[in-house]
């Protein structure tokens, strides 16, 4: 009798140990059994800090709410942001990545297309997941990148389809202006793909270098091409300079910019009348304050409680739903009891579709080849009376041109 009893006890002990293992994930870099630390690599100094600060504040709000109201991930693991300033410099970002990598489960934010491109080799080497605060389509098939949002290509495909089929632009001359960098390339790729699909030629393409202050050459080029609409992959300061020069030369096309090319001050500045008359902005989600969209209403409620001093900001919203995406992956990792680096990758590949209640389009995750980014964009017109200077014309627009866009 003794031997069977010992065997039974041993089996019970083994089962108990196994059960313990199933209930509590073991410690991993950035996870001590109670707190999940996530890294943030963002510019807090320099000109791009105007983007990095609200983006980080948006992520902080989401995790403040998650920790306070839900008890953290899986109701018991609090999430803590560990933030480092990259000053939007690749070498600084690389060093800061090295500083944080062994103390975080993943990177909740890495801001900037060029910064992320510099980080990808290190992320792949170390097997760490990062969420890029950038809408480049290059991220869709990267194994260690948790991208959110409709890529720039999709934004312009939706914009052109809308312009051609819903705004009377079928027989108009469509042109492009873009900064000479991957962001500009992405905008042009989306516009050209949509133009092919719609049978509309792109009449002229003008590029400029980041830091250019005079836009006389591209204004003249596009004016000479008699462009009726200029699709612009620009930054907000460049949008203002280009539109200002075009106006002074009586060149008055329809402007369509990506959200990166917009700044709320443009709605009230000296070009306010031109902006209101001629400019559309392609972005995501809805207007700030639109409580008809559940994701926006929830965010505003949480904002009132945890960050009442936060001013309306487009990038704040992006940071908020980016953190939400990270939280969904962490929830999946908690279900699998695995916060290790390979565990986070497996969680990302098995999490299914990330949902954002209308703040951004849903994003289907899986192995890199199976990922499907959202195809929805929102078209805004300029209205100085609105919080971000933007009024939604078409919310969550999904056109055929965007649906047909094939990601490399």
């Amino acid at each position, binding site marked *: 009798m003794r031997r069977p009893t010992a065997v039974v006890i041993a089996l019970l002990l083994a089962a108990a140990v196994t059960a313990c293992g199933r209930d509590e994930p073991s410690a991993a870099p950035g996870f001590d059994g109670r707190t999940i630390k996530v890294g943030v690599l963002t510019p807090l100094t320099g000109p791009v800090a105007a983007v990095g600060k609200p983006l980080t504040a948006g992520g902080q709000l989401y995790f403040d709410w998650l920790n306070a109201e839900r008890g953290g991930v899986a109701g018991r693991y609090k999430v803590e942001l560990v933030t480092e*300033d990259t000053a939007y410099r*690749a070498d600084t970002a*690389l*060093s800061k990545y*090295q500083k944080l990598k062994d103390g975080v489960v993943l990177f909740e934010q890495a801001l900037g297309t060029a910064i992320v491109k510099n980080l990808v*080799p290190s992320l792949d*080497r170390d097997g760490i997941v990062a969420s890029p605060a950038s809408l480049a389509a290059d991220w869709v098939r990267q194994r260690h990148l948790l991208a959110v949002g409709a890529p720039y290509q999709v934004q312009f495909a939706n914009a052109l389809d809308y312009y051609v089929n819903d705004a009377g632009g079928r027989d108009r001359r469509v042109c492009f202006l873009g900064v000479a960098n991957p962001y500009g390339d992405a905008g042009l790729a989306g516009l050209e793909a949509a133009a092919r699909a719609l049978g509309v030629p792109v009449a002229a393409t003008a590029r400029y270098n980041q830091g250019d202050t005079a836009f006389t050459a591209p204004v003249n080029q596009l004016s000479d091409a008699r462009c009726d609409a200029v699709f612009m992959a620009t930054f907000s300061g460049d949008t203002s300079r280009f539109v200002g020069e075009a106006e002074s030369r009586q060149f008055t096309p329809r402007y369509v910019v990506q959200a990166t090319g917009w700044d709320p001050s443009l709605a009230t500045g000296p070009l306010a009348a031109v902006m209101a008359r001629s400019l559309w902005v392609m972005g995501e989600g809805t207007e700030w304050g639109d409580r008809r969209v559940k994701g926006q209403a929830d965010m505003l409620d949480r904002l009132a409680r945890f960050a009442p001093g936060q001013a309306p900001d487009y990038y704040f919203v992006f940071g908020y739903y980016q953190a939400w995406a990270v939280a969904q992956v962490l929830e999946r990792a908690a279900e699998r009891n695995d916060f290790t680096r390979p565990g986070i990758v497996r969680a990302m590949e098995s999490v299914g579709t990330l949902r954002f209640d209308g703040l951004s389009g849903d994003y289907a995750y899986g192995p890199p080849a199976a990922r499907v980014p959202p195809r929805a964009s929102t078209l805004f017109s300029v209205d100085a009376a609105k919080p971000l200077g933007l009024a939604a014309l078409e919310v969550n627009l999904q056109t055929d041109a965007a649906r047909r866009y094939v990601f490399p």
Partner: protein
Amino acid sequence: MKRTAALAAAAAALYIVIPLRTSDYWLSVLNLAGIAAIGAAGLNLLSGYCGQLSLGHAAFLGTGAYVCAALGAPLWVAVPAAALLGAALGVLVTPFAVRLRTHTLAIATLALVFIGQHVFREWTSVTGGNAGRSDLPVVDLPGAADQGWFWLVWPLVAASVALVAAIARSRLGRDMAAVRADERAAAVVGVNVAATKAAAFALSGALAAAAGALYGAYKGYVGPEDWGLLVSIQYLAMVLIGGIGTVKAPVVGALFVTALPRLVEEVVSPGTAPQVTQIFFGLAIVAVASLRRRGVDVTARPRPRSTASCADQPQL
């Protein structure tokens, strides 16, 4: 001799111990500083020893990085190849350098940055265009990645500095000093000014391109945005702050410009707003510029003015 031997022994001990006792973060800071020091050694030779003010250094650095990516060869082949091409590009600049001096030469070399940016963006079959390239050689080094890079980079720093010091002591170095002091007088006493400038640009270009190749391989990515005018200005700041025309300038300057902001962040102002770090760093630059004409190199012993040669005076 005893002092030199003791310094060499201390340097060797640090070389072995630092990677074993230092976090990946600080190793990455030191590795980037070391790579920058190699590039700055080239600019120090050109501007400090030969008196040729160049704002085109970023173009040479970028060329080296793209050569490293485009060759698809191991690093030990790619770096010398990049250095060779950098030297060739340096020689190409010489016809302008022979005709131009000081500020006008600086403006002419500035054009190199813009030409480089254009080529890096438009020659897409080689450079990858705006998207850049991430197929740089993976280096199999001992220890963890940053440990291995430290052991690789810092001997190359020592070699670069030693090379520049040897050139400075050679006949070519004396010719450079003569060109820096007064081109016409140098020509009168038999110095071949054009050949001296060509050699200075070639050697400077070679060191810059080698540093660029190492920088690209270290990051595993090279894109056109890495090689703008700001990079050229930073390298000029390195040699100026380090003590232009001195042997130690590249190392001291590179550590000052690349590592000091991180040190200030961690030691002087931990947990404070990043802007505080920037203010400290800015004040440090102003202090160096105001108080020490020969840069931040505190080990440099000032010589009495009456005995200092013309070649000892920084001339830009």
